[in-house]
């Protein structure tokens, strides 16, 4: 988040020496200060230890989760692994279905117009509301979870593929035609690379969405996974376990976002300046 300084910050820099510190120092300092305040508030009994377990207690719980597990025997590693695998399965199926279908729909104006309202509606359907239906179809098992993630991913990626194909500069295609490129090569050499940046943006949004859906989906019928961990914590009234579970989610979500940014830079060096604001 670099930017040129605004007049107001020029003025403030002179008055507030804190601004001279590097950003990460201020960031760490503010987080540490918050944790200390929290610890203090619980120790002075301003906050109830049951609802707001202190950071020192959370560190303990974190250690127990890594070594013993919660529920007993299911360690943090098992939870994270279960969640990651589910997301990956649903994600891969969703993307693999969406890309070819999107390429076909996007190339035909007629098909695109026919599909548009259906796609818009399917996107508006709250994925989580499909849970009871999916349970009736596939039972309370892995298939239900993977299906729901696939659903969430599919429509978002499909939309971005269609938009990506539609926004390919027609001049590129004409140029390729003049140069005698065959229709199938135009597809693989021109249309696909030119629409990839947008597809990738959609894939990023979809991954965030999958992450959102998995939490809800894991709250029913399983004890493995980060969502299940949080649900267990609720059953046993363990706010500390719940907070540790959320800590892992934050870590995982953060790593996911950073990893995708990196991947995009490596795979699509020609995609500069396209930023998707959705999360």
């Amino acid at each position, binding site marked *: 988040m670099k930017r040129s300084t605004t*007049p107001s910050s020029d003025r403030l820099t002179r008055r507030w020496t804190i601004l001279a510190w590097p950003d990460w120092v201020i*960031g760490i300092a503010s987080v540490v200060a918050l944790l200390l305040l929290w610890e203090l508030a619980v120790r002075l009994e301003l906050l109830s230890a049951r609802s707001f377990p202190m950071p020192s207690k959370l560190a303990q719980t974190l250690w127990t989760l890594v070594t013993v597990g919660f529920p007993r025997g299911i360690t943090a590693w098992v939870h994270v692994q279960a969640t990651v695998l589910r997301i990956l399965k649903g994600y891969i199926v969703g993307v693999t279905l969406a890309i070819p279908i999107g390429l076909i729909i996007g190339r035909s104006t007629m098909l695109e117009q026919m599909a548009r309202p259906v796609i818009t509606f399917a996107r*508006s359907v709250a994925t989580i509301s499909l849970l009871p239906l999916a349970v009736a179809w596939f039972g309370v098992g892995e298939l239900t979870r993977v299906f729901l993630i696939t659903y969430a991913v599919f429509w978002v990626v499909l939309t971005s593929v269609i938009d990506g194909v539609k926004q390919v500069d027609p001049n590129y295609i004409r140029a390729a035609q003049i140069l005698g490129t065959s229709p199938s090569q135009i597809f693989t050499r021109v249309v696909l690379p030119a629409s990839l940046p947008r597809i990738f943006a959609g894939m990023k949004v979809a991954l965030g969405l999958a*992450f*959102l859906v998995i939490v809800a989906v894991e709250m029913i019928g399983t004890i493995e996974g980060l969502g299940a961990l949080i649900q267990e914590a609720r059953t046993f009234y363990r706010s500390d376990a719940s*907070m540790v579970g959320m800590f892992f989610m*934050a870590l995982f979500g953060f790593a996911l976002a950073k990893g995708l940014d990196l991947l995009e830079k490596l795979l699509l060096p020609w995609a500069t300046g396209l930023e998707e*604001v959705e999360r």
Partner: protein
Amino acid sequence: MKDKTFSRNLWISWLGVLIVLLAWQMITSLQLINPSIFPSPYQVAQAAFERVSLTELMEHVRASLTRVIFGFAIGAGIGIFVGVVSGWYRWLGKIVWTPIELLRPIPPLAWISLALIWFGLGESSKIFIIFLAAFFPVVTNAYKGMLSIDPDLLRVGQTMGLQGLRLLWKIALPASLPDIATGIRVGWSLSFGSLVAAEMLAAKTGLGYMIMNAREQGEISIIVYGILLIGLLNLLTDNLIYRFILKHQLKWHFSTQPSS
């Protein structure tokens, strides 16, 4: 000319919907899938008319909408405030932004256990979840909007004699409105999704409860009806927000439009 293509497009669009509905009806009528777990559109419509009275339905819709609007209004309001203020006063931004950045990747629904421990089973736990769902996208976009204001705009404002809060109100805030609008739309759809989930896990009213209840009674048609209703409501409200933004944003920004 323009009207003609528009009405033709509309016609084709409806044709698409019709084809999907017909295919759905065909699949079930031909018994390709067991209709008791995959009801036909006709069955769904029949169940909707016969088994869910209008007053009952209105009660669920009202409960859901009240929750989501309430939670969203608080979340978006505080989100805009925190985003704008922390974007304006750089020192404040540097202090508050790291904690926000750390909490942001946690899905709103993951807070549900804490929400129930903190607020109990009542309305406030659900409103808290929706608040979070709205807050993070709005605060992020508002902050981003404030940081990406063209410095020349602010210099022009200062040259014209605007200072301090007046500069913020007259120049910075309007300039960051497109980003805030994006945040509001993302926040709304996230709020809506979280609402349904929260209602399914812990509520006695609302559309999420309605489908969860139908599941316990094994009424698949009602589940499908509920899913369609939630989708429709989401689509409708998002469209209203989009139109509102488009109408009001045009006052400041003739060239840019919020992404659809």
